[in-house]
């Protein structure tokens, strides 16, 4: 797999997700809703979705805010040299073992200081195109997270990749899967489709759904 972009190292983890850290000057790479992977060994890697990006503060940052004339050099120093990490939360979506994608939760979480990489288009296409998109249920499970926005950001990224890979039908199938997963939770479904609509991705689907639900 080409274009491996390392975006940070693991701080802490559990079965359903993990948090990794990167320096402030690395923050251009990871983005909300991006698919990432952790390579555990030659045979096993874990996939996840970035759901939260937190820029930590500390005493000095809080103090510098009070300055009327923050020097450029101090600004660069704080971002480039100081150990104030950006903490990035990732929702575990599945794993790949010996080349086979699974949308079940990973058997064991990643370990401290494991490297985190942004997924390449090929990796996104391989992970999202495998099986019956069962990984979407992990996104919808935790209502404490911004599920609608997260799903919309992910669907947009995956749709672009799948379309470029010659699979434009993927997006329709993904929306069908979301609708199926949320068939008993109309309010959430409406919020999800509203967020998707916000991206001008599925305006037609929502009106069609409104018709189906009467």
């Amino acid at each position: 797999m080409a274009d491996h972009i390392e975006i940070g190292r693991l701080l802490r983890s559990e079965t359903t997700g993990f948090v990794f850290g990167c320096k402030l000057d690395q923050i251009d790479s990871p983005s909300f809703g991006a698919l990432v992977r952790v390579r555990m060994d030659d045979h096993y890697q874990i996939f996840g979705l970035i759901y939260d990006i937190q820029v930590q503060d500390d005493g000095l940052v809080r103090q510098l805010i009070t300055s009327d004339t923050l020097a450029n050099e101090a600004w660069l120093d704080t971002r480039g040299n100081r150990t104030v990490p950006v903490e990035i939360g990732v929702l575990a979506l599945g794993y790949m073992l010996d080349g086979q994608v699974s949308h079940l939760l990973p058997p064991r979480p990643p370990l401290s200081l494991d490297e985190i990489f942004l997924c390449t288009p090929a990796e996104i296409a391989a992970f999202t195109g495998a099986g019956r998109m069962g990984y979407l249920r992990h996104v919808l499970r935790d209502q404490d997270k911004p599920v609608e926005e997260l799903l919309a950001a992910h669907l947009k990224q995956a749709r672009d990749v799948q379309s470029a890979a010659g699979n434009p039908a993927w997006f329709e199938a993904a929306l069908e899967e979301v609708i199926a997963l949320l068939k008993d939770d109309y309010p959430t479904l409406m919020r999800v489709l509203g967020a998707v609509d916000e991206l001008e991705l599925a305006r037609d689907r929502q009106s069609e759904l409104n018709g189906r639900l009467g």
Partner: protein
Amino acid sequence: MPVNLVEIQKSLSSFADQAKTHFEQEAIYLRELEQVLTSYADPLDQIRSVVGREVDTNARLRCAVPTDEAINTAIPVGQLPERVALLAADGSQINPSRHARVPFCVINIGAVEMLRGSGQMPKVYQESQLLDYDRTTLPDTGLISEGRVALARDLAERQKLADWSAELPQPAIAMIDGPLELYRDVQQATEFERIAWQFQAVLEQFRRNNVFLLGYVDKPGSDLLVSLLEVIARQDKAFQSSFPKDRPVRVVDTALFKDILTAPGDRSAVFSVSSPTSGKFGNDQQVHFFFMNVGSEDFQHLARVEVPAWVAGDKANIALIQAALWDQTRIMGTKPYPYLLHRSHEVAVVSLDEHRRVEEMIVSEFLRHHIPVGSPSQKQAVKDLMQDGGK
């Protein structure tokens, strides 16, 4: 409960009364000192000759000596040049402890370089030194004392500052937190003499490289100008009666400068120091100092800045240092302390976690070489238990 707050409460009233009396005495003595200051602001030659006569009879005299500026002058801060190179260094240490599993000592030096006006990211320097086992464990006293470690740390801090600042573009300023001279603990007199020539070489290195070395003393408690005024007053009949040989109360220099350095950025006159050791490193390296108001219109805050004589000799150097410190303290907003000094402290400081990791590394190496490793003292073991959640 570790402190009996009820007993403390009972003593508070008397404590506050004593403090009030103390402050009243201070205010009275301060007014006397201010009168001397006003009377003797200008006759600098006369003051220097008074000090000279006093030194002849009192070899232990330690006081300020005016240079060529009226002693009650206030000089406003000027413009910082377009570019100035700054480097600040700080040191910290892990002291050896007989309560630990292995005796070891680490000296950690951190520094941050800023090319102000360049728009470039500052550069961070860091060096950690595990002190030789033979220097840590001594035949006569056992473990090396904390005083000797502190002396070694202070020397290393200045040495690294000189090394790392050698290639700085001009004009260049190197700074440390605290006084310029190494702290002389009476118990470390022998050790101090042993490393004095090294310190002299470091001071010369700054001069050779034309890097303006300074020591920044925040919230200074010195009384060098007060001592000078007392010397002057005791030889002047108009003031003698108010200045007995033993002073009634201690007033610090900042109290005198409070009404002089009223504008933010102001600096005082530059003074040299007369003391038994002030000429030890040569006239060019003799410590000079000035006070500076690094506060704001609403909040005065005075710092003392020490520089060697060769820096103090040119007023343009002093103006550059004043402007640079003003700029550095502005970066920190409502807590006016030089940004780079704070950053170098951040880089240098050794956390408890790092302390433990170094100890574990040493223990592992000892075990690999079949060197016996002790256990922590029972006192330390019990303390560790408390830190882990004991009450």
